[in-house]
């Protein structure tokens, strides 16, 4: 874990980030995201950029970890900075999921208690079902649904249902019961400064 001083959390306005969440490393949270209490985002290897309107529920973990090779390199001190992990927009990370994927596109759902390993590339519109564990190196094609104990796959034909209602609801309710981290970035203002 990097020490607390190295935390560099940028929170855009209009996003709800609970104070009880664990945010480590260089993290950018875009507009409209909802980070529940005791969710964790661990940017160990490099920065994490979370896209717009993502929901990260309780006990969900998004991690960008160093590989064994990189760890050794870091100890030797010749680790090159890793490219940022970009998480697309409209993703939902449900309760207790652990996502360490290499790349995450838009409109994906990671259901409860699922695990996505570091060698997985998640494209757009995918659903990783509850308790599904993906460990091997693979690329999930667009709108894949993985479900069940045997991790069966199918292609979702129906359109992705946006989580707008859920986000609006959370945006209303969460501030009533939790301390929030203040947004410290305003995209309009930064633009005007630049």
């Amino acid at each position, binding site marked *: 874990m990097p020490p607390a001083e190295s935390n560099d959390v940028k929170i855009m306005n209009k996003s709800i980030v609970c104070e009880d969440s664990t945010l480590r490393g260089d993290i950018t949270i875009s507009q409209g995201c909802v980070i529940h209490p005791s969710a964790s985002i661990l940017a160990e290897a490099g920065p994490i950029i979370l896209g717009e309107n993502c929901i990260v529920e309780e006990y969900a973990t998004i991690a960008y970890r160093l590989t064994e090779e990189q760890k050794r390199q870091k100890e030797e001190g010749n680790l090159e900075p890793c490219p940022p992990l970009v998480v697309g927009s409209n993703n939902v990370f449900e309760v207790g999921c652990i996502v360490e994927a290499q790349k995450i596109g838009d409109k994906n759902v990671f259901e409860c208690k699922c695990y996505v390993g570091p060698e997985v590339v998640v494209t757009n519109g995918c*659903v990783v*079902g509850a308790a599904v564990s993906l460990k091997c190196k693979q690329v999930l094609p667009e709108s894949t*649904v993985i*479900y*069940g104990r045997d991790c*069966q*796959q*199918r*292609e*979702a*034909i*129906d*359109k992705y*249902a*946006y989580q*707008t*209602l859920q986000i609006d609801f959370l945006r209303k309710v969460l501030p009533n019961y939790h301390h929030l981290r203040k947004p410290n970035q305003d995209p309009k203002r930064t633009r005007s400064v630049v």
Partner: protein
Amino acid sequence: MANFMQDSVVKYACSCGILNPISKLFFCRHCPKLRCGFCVCHEVDSNFCSNCLENIPSSEARNKKNCCANCFNCPCCHHTLSARATTVVVQKKPEEGAKDGDGAAGADAKPDPSKVITKKMYYLSCLACRWTSRDVGIPDQSVATGSWPDNECAYQTRFNALAEYYQAVVQQDKQERQEYLRRKTPKTHKFPSLTDRTGLTVSIIRRQMGWSDKNTQKAKPVNIAPAQNTEDVGQLPESIFTQKINLRNITTVKQRHNQPCEQPFTINKLYPQRRGLWIKRSLRCRECEHNVIKPEYHPTSVKYRIQLFASYHVPDVLLVKCDQPLKAGEPNAVILKLSNPTLHDMEINIVELPTEEDELKLIEEFKRACTLKDTSLTAATAMDSLKSLTGSPSLTGTASLTNTSLVRQTSILEEPRVVKLKVNSKLQPPEASFILNLRDDSREFDDEPQTTTKSEPEFIVSRKSNKVYLSLKFIPDADLKTGDDVYVGFNMLYTYVNTVTNTPEKKEPTTHVLNCRIYVQVGSIEA
């Protein structure tokens, strides 16, 4: 309850000779014997849907092909589908009627609120695999249940014709058999019948009633076109050799079997399947025809009206531990925990298992008893079967009527068999019997510990309320090899106080000495 879900090391031999853990056994209080699921009569009590918990009468269930009218299963992953509502914007102008398909987000632009009304539309969706009824192009419905289209398969008419034909065949077969039986049965019965006394025969009665002498409506099966074989099955398309198959579009074997009338090849032909009904069943002892298990009728209730589980009546034996590592031919001992589930003290005596000859002799004796019982009933059963064929008990004489209480159902007795499991150790049974105290739930709230006044036999390790820990000595056979499982078997004689009385004169509970054969898998021979 440690052995409720997994296979237990302690098994009881049912009276039919099949080994079962105690959680799967029943105890018939009237016989009184152990019964297992194999040697009781299973009867369907009620049909119900496990999703909506609606009770469906059996005739209606048969009509609906044992499927629920309202609930559907996902054709993709076989979970229950749930109806989901969406608000759809409908233009007020009737000729425009165009519906906006996806209004889930409510993000549709509403040009003029006064001109627009919203309507709730429902579609089916699976919460496990996210299959929706829109995937296969089933239009959304305006009501959540009842209006979903049935997918008629292509062979429906052919199937109906075949079903009709074979029903007619069955009907004809039945009639012929009935005719044959009527010719076969002797005119004079062992028992006096009402028609004998009045000097009337069935045919005379029929004639008097103005019915025709015989069943004239002979069902003649309509001829059906037999299936024809064809040589030409068509060639595989060229693309199958050249193009990569997209496995995601092809159904799995399970999905096809779930939709048996079509067995679709591609996933775009998967339709929601009506959910199969569940049953509540009651179990009946085949020997005395008393109910062993009878559930409450209502589907939402999980209680029983009659529940004669063996674990309520038979002492429960648990393997605690083995004294020493198991070695072939060396004396050893197991600690067993016996608990008394009943409200009466039990006297328990542990003896050796009967030898195979004894077992065979017992079975032989039982069979003889059965045949005796059978011959006394055959006359009645013959009449009864006749009655069930004609479906009119009044026409077949009184002999069957007087006996209907005895032959509720002509149940076939399960022939007992020799227990398959062979014991491979020599038991050294304890020399004395002992008392297993009654179960008293209030005893555990007593403050003072019980003082044992009388001296215990030395094989009893300890005693606590209704439980006894005893040590049982045995010697594994000398010819066992390393890794072989060691089985210890014993015959447990226990006193059972039967509180139900079969006869009205005897009111006080009777005490029986019952026995059950118990087989314990102690472990495997150590290296």
